[in-house]
């Protein structure tokens, strides 16, 4: 479960995120939506402990990220839009390294299963420089899932993936949620979020505009029953026009 209360992140005096509060329960997939500069990535980076929050409380599967960061970090995984890998470690060496960092005994079996699931079983000896962008993304995901996190954050997870990869990624996300993980996905691909997410959280200029279940939000922003999709909701909720006159 992800519990966020009063999360605020300031860069000098500039508020990137202001007083953000929400909860994501196990099995839920929340789509984090907002225009560019809304604070989505900053929120995810604060939630995953990469950057310190200026104010507020974040609890990851019961562990307070501020007071007990190690326990919180052991339970989470964050996948950024740009996979960060070590140029000089092979695919398998990445898993070996991640296993030691997260102290995962018997990682070999889980690692092989993950690589097979991600169709990378034949690439164990390759270096990141020899992988396509999509493959690098998959490797980052394999490393992040090795310790079976209870909370997963995805920042634009579908970037660089081909149609087959996108479908597999969607299935993988749903499978993790089905297994009980609490998941947040930040993406601009609203139709894809609509397919995967059970909940939506819309941000604008660092503040929460609205959050709730996908169904409730679609209903709330429908002028006629069933006339609104997430894209329409996005424009109506944020007041963006999308070029419409």
């Amino acid at each position: 479960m992800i519990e966020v209360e009063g999360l605020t992140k300031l860069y000098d005096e500039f508020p990137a995120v202001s007083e953000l509060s929400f909860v994501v329960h196990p099995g839920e997939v929340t789509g984090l939506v907002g225009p560019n500069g809304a604070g989505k990535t900053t929120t995810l980076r604060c939630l995953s402990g990469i950057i310190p929050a200026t104010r507020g409380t974040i609890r990851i599967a019961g562990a307070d990220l501020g007071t007990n960061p190690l326990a919180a970090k052991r339970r989470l995984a964050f996948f950024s839009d740009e996979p960060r890998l070590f140029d000089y470690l092979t695919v398998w060496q990445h898993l070996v390294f991640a296993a030691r960092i997260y102290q995962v005994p018997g990682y070999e079996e889980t690692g092989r299963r993950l690589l097979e699931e991600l169709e990378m079983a034949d690439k164990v000896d390759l270096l990141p420089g020899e992988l396509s962008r999509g493959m690098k993304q998959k490797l980052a995901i394999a490393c992040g899932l090795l310790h079976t996190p209870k909370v997963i954050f995805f920042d634009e997870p579908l970037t660089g993936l081909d149609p087959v990869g996108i479908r597999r990624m969607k299935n993988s996300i749903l499978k993790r949620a089905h297994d009980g993980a609490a998941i947040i996905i930040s993406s601009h691909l609203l139709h894809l979020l609509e397919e995967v997410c059970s909940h939506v959280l819309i941000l604008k200029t660092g503040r929460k505009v609205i959050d709730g279940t996908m169904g409730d939000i679609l209903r709330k922003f429908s002028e006629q029953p069933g006339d609104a999709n997430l894209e329409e909701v996005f424009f109506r909720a944020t007041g963006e026009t999308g070029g419409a006159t």
Partner: protein
Amino acid sequence: MIGALIYLQSQSLKNRLRARLRRLKKPKYLAGAVVGAAYFYFFFFRHFFAGRRPTTNVTPETLLLFELVGALALFVMVMSAWIFPHERAALAFSEAEIAFLFPAPVTRKALIHFKLLRSQLAILFTTLLLTLVTRRFGGGAGWIRALGWWLILSTLNLHTLAASFARTRLLERGISNWRRRAVLLSAATALVVAASLWVRHNVPAPRASDFESLEMMKYYFRHTLESGPASYVLYPFRLVVRPYLATDGWTFLVAAGPVLALMLFHYWWVMKSDVAFEEASVDYSRKLAEKIAVLRAGGGWHSPARRVKKKRPPFGLRPTGLAPIAFLWKNLISAGQAFTLRTWLLLAFVAVCIGGPMGASRRTPEWLLPTVGIVTAILAGYSLLLGPAILRQDLRQDLVNADVLKMYPLRGWQIVLGELLAPTAILTGAQWCLLLLAATTFSQTPGGGLIPLASRLSIGVGAAIIAPTLNLISLIIPNASVLLFPSWVQTGRERGGGIEVMGQRLIFMLGSVLIFAFALVPAAALFALVLFAMKIFISITAAVPLAAAFAAMVMAAEAAFAVWWMGRLFERFDLSAESLS
């Protein structure tokens, strides 16, 4: 069209300057700027504004010698521009410039003008620096020196560009690089032979007395280059150098005329060369971007953006155990296969096998053993200074992956310690091997006196005990500065530059030396104390390693405190806030 390109250039420069000025709001940049400006003022500008300085030792002969030396240097540079490069003509554009300008309706002529205009910025900056430096040591009128340098650099720049076009034209006509090089080298060889033959027949052969004084050597050098075939070849290069050496305004104006004509000729040559440079420029900009990426990742400017090769791990890493060991494992892989335990054992074995018999032998030349011993001991000491600059398999390399490191469920000190282990281990391994060689070979003093094995072992073991903690401290300093002042070091977000960064580096250099010296004071004091105290009870040979162990413990405690403090820094480290500044 050129107006748009001038706008791009001027606005980029203006914005860059504005960003630099804005950064001065932060005390650390302001301090750097103040120190950098003070350095420039006291070292260069103070003399520049002190009015016209008399040119030191300016006799007509000296001026002629300078002119000949300058012409020879220019000749070598021009020949290099024709012989060494192998690639096609490429104008240096950034990736953004290529993306905007190449698909745009911009003529080839406008692009070349843009390139020439932009190179003028670099030339003007270099002119300023060279003027400051050369006037500082050579004196003379500032404006003559500045304009002289500008003429030299601009002509050279135009010639290099024209030469690259000509090389490409030759390639297009089927003349390979090797064929071109063979012809040019043959011509250069023929010239050298012709000049030598001419000198042999026309200049009296040098006698031993000609080399007795510097003046005589200068005379012979001058005589050789000033007459015969060399004088004809060097003539245009002397023309280019001459304005710089002018002693007054009128001489300068007279000398500048031919150079301006040469520049105009080169400009015409460049503009008339109908050579496609677009494809090579795209390739060049990609390589430049890769180089910058390597630089930002902690590599040197000259280290190529090469493809990383798969490397064997130094040891098997178990999934459980101390987490910092994972960083040691990872960074040793990064350092390469040369740094495995097997390699070090092999080197130690070789050191003993070579050094042992050498040190024990009484038939070696008297100078050999002290020389080998002293050189290896100096190398071991020198590695302490050079090692941290060369071995960067630590936070300096991994800070680009700070996002990933910060997600790990580890304390800051664990990450910092882990990052420091690999370079410490490599440096220590190298020093131990050198110490082993020094201890086994250094059996004689330069005066021929014998140094007992026990004494050598005592000092060697003492140094070996101190080495790991000493290396750790020397590596902690640059790594701590990465966390304290990420913008002062290449962190992967921005490439440093400007007077404030220069000032910061000066502060950093001075600070590093002071901190290192300061950190050693307690250890050195304890070493001396224990050594003198123990001498009463045990022999000096036994006291040295014991005192070294105490000193190492003090340094280990200092290092432990520093690692803990750096861990706290790492936990609070916010690269995104830093990059916003």
